[in-house]
C-alpha cells in the first residue's frame, strides 16, 4: 500500500469513540493552516465521525484508506487565506474551459499544486502533482514552453504557483478558477 506524505501522523488505534475525535482535535490545534494529518484508527465509527467532525469544524476531509483493521483518515487544516477570491496571475481559465481542452485532447499540462494527500483522493487524470511548497525546487520537472494549467482546490494556491512559474520563465501559464472544489469533469482516485 502506498503511503501518502503528511505533516503529522496521529495514532488513535485501539481507542473507542469519542477518543479518536478528541485526539484529532488536539493534534489539529498544533498544526499550521494548510497542513495535512493522517489519523490512524480502528474504531469503525470513526469514518463517519471524522467526516462529520471536519464538516462541523470547517477542516477539509480528504478521504480514508482502509488497511485491514486500520482506517487511515486524511484531513487538512483549514486556512483563512483561501477564502479570498482575488487573484493576481492575469491569465485565468474556468473549470469548464479546462475541461473542454482536455476533452479536445489538446496538448496541455495540468499541474495540481495541492498537497499529495488531497491529490491522491481526487484529481484530474494525468495531472502532475507538485505541492505548492515544493514547486520552486521542482521547476526542472516542467517544460517552460508547455501550456500549463495550474489547479488547486479554490484557485488561491494555484494563483501563487502560476505567479511563481511566470516569474521563472514559464511562458504559457494559466490559473484555473475555482479548481477542484468545483470540478465536475472526470477524476482519478486512490480508492478505486
Amino acid at each position: 500500500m502506498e503511503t501518502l506524505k503528511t505533516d503529522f501522523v496521529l495514532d488513535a488505534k485501539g481507542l473507542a469513540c469519542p477518543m479518536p475525535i478528541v485526539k484529532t482535535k488536539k493534534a489539529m490545534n498544533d498544526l499550521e493552516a494548510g497542513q495535512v494529518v493522517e489519523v490512524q484508527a480502528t474504531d469503525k465509527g470513526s469514518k463517519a465521525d471524522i467526516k462529520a467532525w471536519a464538516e462541523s469544524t470547517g477542516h477539509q476531509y480528504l478521504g480514508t484508506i482502509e488497511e485491514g483493521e486500520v482506517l487511515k483518515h486524511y484531513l487538512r487544516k483549514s486556512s483563512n487565506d483561501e477564502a479570498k477570491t482575488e487573484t493576481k496571475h492575469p491569465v485565468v481559465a474556468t473549470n469548464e474551459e479546462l475541461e473542454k481542452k482536455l476533452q479536445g485532447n489538446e496538448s496541455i499540462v495540468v499541474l495540481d499544486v495541492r498537497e499529495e494527500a488531497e491529490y491522491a483522493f481526487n484529481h484530474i487524470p494525468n495531472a502532475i502533482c507538485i505541492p505548492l511548497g515544493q514547486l520552486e525546487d521542482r521547476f526542472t520537472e516542467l517544460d517552460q514552453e508547455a501550456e500549463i494549467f495550474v489547479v488547486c482546490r479554490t484557485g488561491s494556491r494555484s494563483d501563487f504557483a502560476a505567479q511563481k512559474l511566470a516569474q521563472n520563465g514559464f511562458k504559457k501559464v494559466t490559473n484555473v478558477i475555482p479548481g477542484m472544489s468545483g470540478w465536475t469533469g472526470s477524476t482519478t482516485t486512490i480508492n478505486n
Partner: protein
Amino acid sequence: MSKKVAIIASNGGLFDAYKVFNIATAAAATDQEVAIFFTFEGLNLIHKEANKQLPMPEGKEHFAEGFAKANVPAIPEMVAMAGELGVKMIGCQMTMDVMGLEKEVFVDGIEVGGAVTFLEFANDADVTLTF
C-alpha cells in the same frame, strides 16, 4: 458563533456517566460550547471518590469486560478530558445542600450554581440533552 450544547446529568450509574461524557467531549472537540448541570444522583459523576466506582445497572455487570476490551477510558479520565476541552461543569447547589456535600468532595474546576445558572446557559443552546 459556535454552537452550544446544554446537558443535564441527573443519574449516577456508569452507563449514565458514559452517555454524558462521550457526548460532552465529542461536542467540545467539535468546537462547541458545552455545559453540564449535575443534579441529584448525577453529582456522583463528578464526586472525586464515587466516580471511580460507579455502578453498572443490575444484571448488566458482564459488560465490564466489554468496556475493558473496547479500551474505553475510565470515568475520572473522561472528566479530566472534558475539563481540558473547556466543558463547563456545574454542580447543583440545592442537591449538595440536601445531601450535605461540600464543593471540596468534587473534582477540581467545577462551578456550583442553581437552576438559573444552568437555565441561563441553556436558554440559547442549540442542543439540550437530559441523561
